[in-house]
């Protein structure tokens, strides 16, 4: 499968839209401290089903919603949509293109969609099982955590290897 693009609204510091097209090869994201680079990777982590606020660098999930600035009001909800090219069929749904999206409201209410159809969170995490994609694979490396695999307990490392086999 390939990652095609991500669109977000009201996600963290991206008050309006964030649209990122990912092509083949290497995409670099650059900018000054605090401008929002890591926030964009939090969006991917979240839409793939991350449930731990700590892993998303927030105190509670509602803090993912744009919280306003000195001259702009907070948003009432956030949505992240990510689109995959599934031509090779590695995602077990009969579509050439698959869009996964997730919404969160200030009330704490959540909604999940696959190709516009409402689903449960579990359907999203099941979709990515065994594809090497997901919040527990080592394919989403958080800032400051590059040597996590070295610090992991020897047993945790074995589990990572087991996952690869």
């Amino acid at each position, binding site marked *: 499968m390939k990652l095609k693009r991500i669109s977000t609204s009201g996600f963290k510091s991206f008050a309006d839209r964030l649209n990122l097209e990912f092509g083949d090869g290497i995409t670099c*994201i650059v*900018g000054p401290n605090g401008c929002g*680079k890591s926030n964009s990777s939090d969006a991917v982590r979240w839409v793939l089903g991350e449930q731990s606020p700590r892993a998303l660098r927030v105190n509670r999930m509602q803090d993912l919603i744009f919280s306003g600035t000195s001259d702009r009001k907070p948003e009432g909800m956030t949505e992240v949509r990510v689109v995959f090219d599934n031509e090779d069929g590695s995602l077990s749904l009969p579509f050439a293109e698959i869009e996964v999206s997730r919404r969160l409201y200030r009330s704490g209410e959540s909604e999940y969609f696959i190709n516009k159809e409402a689903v449960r969170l579990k359907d999203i995490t099941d979709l990515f099982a065994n594809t090497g994609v997901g919040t527990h694979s080592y*394919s989403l490396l958080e800032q400051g955590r590059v040597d996590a695999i070295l610090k992991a307990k020897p047993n945790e490392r074995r589990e990572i290897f087991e996952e690869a086999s």
Partner: protein
Amino acid sequence: ARKQFLDTFEQIRQNFNRTFRRIFGGGRADLMILNEANVLESGVEIFAQPPGKKLQSITPFSGGEKSMTAIALLFAIYQVKASPFCFLDEVDAALDDANVDRFARLLLDFKHQTQFIIVTHNKHTMAAADRLYGVTMDKPGVSTVVSMEFEHRSNYDLSPLPEVE
């Protein structure tokens, strides 16, 4: 399951040594199953030797050496079970410029099978990029993304990192 794990483990172990030697320009690295009798419950230990130094546990490694070793191990695992895409957030933070360049060149070998999305502050990593997105906060606290043109398409000036026999 035990057989499958041991086959995968052996592949990762060999990839790790090969990738370590490429990124360090020599030396060697090894993985050891601590409890041969009960492999699926065992821990995995890491030993490595930068060129000219002694084989040791990774505890006394420098910050940059740990990052490089972690990168070598992660890529060893990716070679066995490639994630379709990989988000790396400032994995080059502890590296000096010579090592960032080696890391960027290592990426060139993997990008045909994996989409890399890399957050970085470093120009040597950017030199490997196929596309560049700049994140800014023109309005304080509000992030926006801009597609950035390359003055340099120096992707073609980066030579792949040679194998070290």
